[in-house]
């Protein structure tokens, strides 16, 4: 049990951190937003593993259902037509 | 008889009243303030005479504090008070007499000449007289200092009377500054005397001279400073006070102000030189003679300074062209004699010479004033000549004064100068060690000066009155009125006769007790410890001054020899002058002196180096300080301000406006704090 748990934790930890890094590092802000969704969802998995299913549910609802949509919306509103792929130069 | 003594303050208060009246109401008075002045000084004279007579007849004095202006708690108090003893009584008479005559003379010299600013003039005279009289009867050294300074102020005001010209204000400034420089030492001395003895009283058993005497005898404890022994410290004190004396009495090297002071009106010169300012210095030494008599070093220095000044000033008088300049140097020279007398233990001689000098110098100055009126304020003797017949009163009285000055028997100056030299001689011969040698050296210089005195005096007389008139004005001089002649006459008679009050040689020869002045001065009440025999006692105590008299030719022989030598030298001087200058058209013989003439004409470059000290040393030094102050001291202040602003401009740069940088700095700050506190708190 503990082993599976550990494997699961390790896996999702990698997913969380990896996608978080992706949020920070990818150039396209769209991709960032999507990776943020991945990261937040994997955090929800951690919550479940910590016997906080309600919090996990809220995490999914609030973040993925609310925050991410808001961010997506904002990206749409602020994206300039000319450069659809690259919206920034350098890091 | 306390009654008359209660009026002593009035002697000074009367001229003060005349000062106030002249200052505030002088414009509206008929003689512009002269009349209150004459009345006041005459009143002072009357009171002074009454006081002197009282002292003479009763042999009592008066020594009392009248007003305490600082009451010390647990420490000494400061008072104003009156000390009347023969010395001050005599001086009061002299001062008020001269002042009265000067006031009268001023009517002729100032009023008749139509000067402007007369109320100011008479106010100055009144204040001058007031200050000097108060100084004379001061019973403590602080009060003496106060009026001593005021005398300086008055001289400033009066010398600079003609302020619209360039010369007088400069001369006034110089007079005040040089005497102030001396007064600085005096004030240090005064303060030190208070600190040492806790009192500044002149007379009585609680006076500082007496306490010093007791201290030297080991019967009294005083504070001394700088780790000096008592004798040495008292010498220092005496020398400090002497600084003021030398400044006021124009002793070398502080004499430079006096010739310049001739820029003032001539009656003022008379007052300054004869009775007030210059006399104040010598009077002060006489006043506290009990203190000086304790210190052989101080006495030696006094004598040496006096003798040297007497000779030094006399040589410069030889070449002067202005009438008043000659008189100015003669004044310096004569006060040198007085100092010589004081330094060599001749207290009576000094006072005697002070008295006679007051009379004949006032006379000479007033006479010069008369000549100046006649000459329309041209003072160059080479433009005069032949005035003898045009103004006989002036001539004869002036001659009387000149004879007195030259020391020709039986005029006043002879008796006093002779006594001065005699005292110096016998004490120089009788005293052991360095002091004796110093006294002899001083005597030698004084003796030599006698010749020069005779010479320049009669050079002046011959150039002015004899020969042919050398200018148009001299041919037709302005007549003078009674108000000029009157004072001259009074003084002329006095100059011839006042010497009889103390004919020591005659006494020695004949044995008659005619040394009245000596007796008078010796009448001071015992309790005051200011009488002559007390001084003599002190002088002759070896623990103190240790001055002794010696008469190698016997008393009579010595006195006769001394008188003969000095008279001979004086006559030689007179004859030399006659030889050179008693001609219808005298010529300048000074060229024969060669380079010496240049030096003499420039007064040995004394002015030059003093001016150099002031103008080329002090002022540039102040300028350097000013630069330092503006540059460094103020620079630091301004620098702090600009450093702050520069720092501010740098700090501002931190706020780049880019929010990413803010986040970075914020993170950096947080990390730094975490790191620092991790170390401090020992978290790891």
């Amino acid at each position: 049990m503990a082993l599976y748990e550990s494997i699961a934790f390790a896996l999702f930890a990698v997913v969380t951190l990896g996608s978080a890094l992706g949020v920070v590092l990818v150039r396209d802000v769209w991709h960032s937003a999507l990776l943020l969704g991945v990261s937040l969802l994997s955090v929800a998995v951690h919550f479940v593993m910590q016997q906080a299913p309600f919090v996990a549910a809220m995490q999914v609802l609030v973040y993925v259902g609310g925050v991410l949509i808001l961010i997506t919306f904002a990206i749409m509103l602020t994206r300039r037509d000319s450069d659809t792929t690259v919206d920034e130069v350098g890091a | 008889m306390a009654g008359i003594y209660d009026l002593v303050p009035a002697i000074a208060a009367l001229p003060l009243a005349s000062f106030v009246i002249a200052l505030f109401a002088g414009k509206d008075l008929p003689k512009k303030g002269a009349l209150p002045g004459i009345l006041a000084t005459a009143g002072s004279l009357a009171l002074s005479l009454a006081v002197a007579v009282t002292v003479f007849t009763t042999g009592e004095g008066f020594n009392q504090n009248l007003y305490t202006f600082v009451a010390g708690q647990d420490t000494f108090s400061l008072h104003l008070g009156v000390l009347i003893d023969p010395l001050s009584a005599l001086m009061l008479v002299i001062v008020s007499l001269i002042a009265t005559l000067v006031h009268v003379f001023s009517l002729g010299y100032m009023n008749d000449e139509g000067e402007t600013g007369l109320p100011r003039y008479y106010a100055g005279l009144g204040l001058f007289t007031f200050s000097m009289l108060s100084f004379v009867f001061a019973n403590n050294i602080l009060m003496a200092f106060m009026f001593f300074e005021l005398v300086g102020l008055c001289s400033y005001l009066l010398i600079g009377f003609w302020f619209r010209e360039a010369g007088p204000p400069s001369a006034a400034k110089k007079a005040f500054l040089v005497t102030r420089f001396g007064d600085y030492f005096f004030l240090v001395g005064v303060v030190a005397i208070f600190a040492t003895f806790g009192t500044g009283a002149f007379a009585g058993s609680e006076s500082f001279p007496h306490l010093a005497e007791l201290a030297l005898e080991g019967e009294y404890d005083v504070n001394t400073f700088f780790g000096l022994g008592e004798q040495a410290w008292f010498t220092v004190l005496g020398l400090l006070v002497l600084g003021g004396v030398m400044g006021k009495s124009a002793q070398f090297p502080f004499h430079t102000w006096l010739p310049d002071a001739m820029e003032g009106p001539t009656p003022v010169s008379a007052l300054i030189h004869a009775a007030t300012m210059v006399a104040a210095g010598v009077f002060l030494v006489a006043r506290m003679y009990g203190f000086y008599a304790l210190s052989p070093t101080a006495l030696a220095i006094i004598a040496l300074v006096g003798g040297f000044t007497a000779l030094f000033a006399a040589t410069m008088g030889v070449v002067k062209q202005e009438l008043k300049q000659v008189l100015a140097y003669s004044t310096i020279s004569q006060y040198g004699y007085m100092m010589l007398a004081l330094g060599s233990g001749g207290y009576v001689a000094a006072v005697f010479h002070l008295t006679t000098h007051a009379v004949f110098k006032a006379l000479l100055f007033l006479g010069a004033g008369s000549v100046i009126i006649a000459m329309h304020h041209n003072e160059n003797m080479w433009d005069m000549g032949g005035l003898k017949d045009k103004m006989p009163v002036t001539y004869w009285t002036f001659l009387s004064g000149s004879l007195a000055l030259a020391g020709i028997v039986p005029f006043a100056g002879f008796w006093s100068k002779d006594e001065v030299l005699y005292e110096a001689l016998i004490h120089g011969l009788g005293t052991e060690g360095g002091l004796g040698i110093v006294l002899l050296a001083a005597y030698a210089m004084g003796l030599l000066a006698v010749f020069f005195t005779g010479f320049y005096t009669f050079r002046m007389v011959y150039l002015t009155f004899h020969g042919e008139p050398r200018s148009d004005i001299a041919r037709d001089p302005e007549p003078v009125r009674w108000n000029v002649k009157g004072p001259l006459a009074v003084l002329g008679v006095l100059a011839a006769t006042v010497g009889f009050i103390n004919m020591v040689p005659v006494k020695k020869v004949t044995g008659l007790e005619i040394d009245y002045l000596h007796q008078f001065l010796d009448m001071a009440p015992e309790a005051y410890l200011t009488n002559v025999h007390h001084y003599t006692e002190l002088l002759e105590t070896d623990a103190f001054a240790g001055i002794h008299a010696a008469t190698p030719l016997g008393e009579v022989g010595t006195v006769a020899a001394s008188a003969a030598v000095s008279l001979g030298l004086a006559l030689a001087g007179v004859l030399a002058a006659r030889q050179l200058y008693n001609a219808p058209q005298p010529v300048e013989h000074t060229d024969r002196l060669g380079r010496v003439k240049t030096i003499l004409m420039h007064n040995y470059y004394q002015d030059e180096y003093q001016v150099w000290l002031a103008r080329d040393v002090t002022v540039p030094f102040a300028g350097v300080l000013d630069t330092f102050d503006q540059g460094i001291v103020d620079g630091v202040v301004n620098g702090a301000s600009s450093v702050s602003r520069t720092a501010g401009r740098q700090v501002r740069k931190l706020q780049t406006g880019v929010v990413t940088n803010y986040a970075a700095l914020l993170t950096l700050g947080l990390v730094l704090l975490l790191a620092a506190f991790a170390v401090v708190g020992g978290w790891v």
Partner: protein
Amino acid sequence: MIATEWYLMLSAGLFCIGLLGILMRRNALIFLMSVELMLNAANINLVAFSLQHGNLSGQVFALFGMALAAAEVAVGLGIILVLYRNFGDIDVTSPTTMRW
């Protein structure tokens, strides 16, 4: 049960990654997302410690945290939109009219 330390490390990592995003990127939206990551890191902690301490207050706080994060995003997006309208893009380094 996974030891709390691991969660602490996870959250620390997440926090640092968020911080990294803030420091590296100039896009305001990425900035916002990075902040969300940091808040999530705190939430992981809270939930983990809640389990460890056996009380629910940590979870409750985590819920509050989420709500506030959402509100913050809402306000933030509003500001980003006016930023876009005024400055033409959403580069956080472009508005520097005020500095020093």
